[in-house]
């Protein structure tokens, strides 16, 4: 199967690989997917007092499309408010990376990962 140039770029030069301290109150962590399905994404966001995502990190176990999807969304969500980040749709990710139909689940997982990270952050800050 041929990968798009954008998938290859993110796979070969992934942006924002790494981990943030999950215990930090400013950090929200999302862990989605399952090893048995061949895809696991961990997405972490660091949120400022103003509710802006100032840093994002990911680690992904999965195919090239899964790695590219998570790498891409870390770029996209940085600088966004939680609401804006929460509005990112898998279809936008899939379109941007030209994912073939069999890889659409990778973009869905990336969308889930953003939401899970936001949810985790909000659980730490019930009033936010």
């Amino acid at each position: 199967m041929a990968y798009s140039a954008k998938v290859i770029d993110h796979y070969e030069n992934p942006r924002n690989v790494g981990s943030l301290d999950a215990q930090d109150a400013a950090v929200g962590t999302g862990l989605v997917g399952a090893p048995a399905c061949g895809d696991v994404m961990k997405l972490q966001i660091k949120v400022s007092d103003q509710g802006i995502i100032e840093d994002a990190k990911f680690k992904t176990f999965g195919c090239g499309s899964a790695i590219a999807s998570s790498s891409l969304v870390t770029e996209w969500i940085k600088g966004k408010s939680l609401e804006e980040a929460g509005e990112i749709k898998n279809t936008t990710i899939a379109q941007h990376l030209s994912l073939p139909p069999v890889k659409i689940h990778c973009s869905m997982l990336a969308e889930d990962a953003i939401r899970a990270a936001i949810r985790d952050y909000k659980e730490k800050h019930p009033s936010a």
Partner: protein
Amino acid sequence: MVTRPIYLDYQSTTPCDPRVLKVMLPYFTEEFGNPHSRSHAYGWKAEEAVDHAREQVAAILSADPREVIFTSGATEANNLAIKGVAHFYKDQKNHIITCSTEHKCVLDSCRHLEQEGFKVTYLPVKSNGLINLEDLRKAITNQTVLVSIMAVNNEIGVIQPLAEIGKICREAGVFFHTDAAQAVGKIPLDVNAMNIDLLSLSGHKLYGPKGVGALYVRRKPRVRLQALINGGGQERGMRSGTLSTPLCVGLGEACALAQTEMRAESIRLKALSARFYKAIQDSLEEVYLNGDADQRIPGNLNISFAHVEGEGLMMGIKELALSSGSACTSASLEPSYVLRALGVEVEMAHTSLRIGFGRFTTEEDVDTAAKMIIKEVGRLRDMSPLWEMSRQGIDIKSIQWAEH
């Protein structure tokens, strides 16, 4: 300059050996006769060539040339053996025994027969990929007509105990068929010593051409088949259709070369595999060999690299042509059914690579491949949340994963 990837997928197919191609070529042009034409020299020449090829195929199996039926490949040979025997003897017996790690064409032929009303037992395999002979003994009933167990598995390269299986089948009066597509030319085979009644082989798995294979069908005690393809009654009525002289000649030559070179080649491949596996083990933790370490053909390794997904890994080693047990591209998302049958955890099956060495693999290829894989596994582990958890001592199984 664009160079081609290093070929490490010899269980998928092999290049046609130039020595094989050379003997095939005249039969496309000058010696174009129909081997079934009895009335002129064109036909006689072609028939002579086919007969010689039949002898060469028979020789590698210690069989009689009259027991060799040319087919389009191992898939057809497997279909013919299984369906042909089942249909011919259907008024007497209706039970077939096979195993869960067989090639799809054997499993699918069996499924097809089940739809027709036949009973099929799918034997499990042990964690090393081999069947339990006691399971086989217990599965045989007075309704069993055929046992079909592959000689060498295409994914994990393990060698089933053919002589023992043959002995059990012969004693029970049951025909023994083996899909030997991955075995011919790699391990010594003797249809008489092993009590094999039917054996399938393929040209392109042993440095011969694609589009040709053969089925060995025992004459004494005689095995009878109902043909799948009807027509002019060629191949003793078991497979009609004009034979392709060049393809038959190529298959014969491939068998002859393999027979001559097998001993030396096995030693060479075993050394290459050992060299590769040692390099991997010296540099990487948590790598696991799938399938029995000793009962396997020398040119196959199937390795799980824990916490690194196979398809993702393959993308990083584009300079290597090999295949993965992960099936992320298939619609099912289910990884290799062969690895699953061994009891390999689904997550580990997703991390496997099948690495196949063959006649044209060099030591340099092996060293380059090992170096690339080690580097890429390291990079992807640094990127893997599962590797991170495992380093932190978190049991991945303790986490409630949302399976999608």
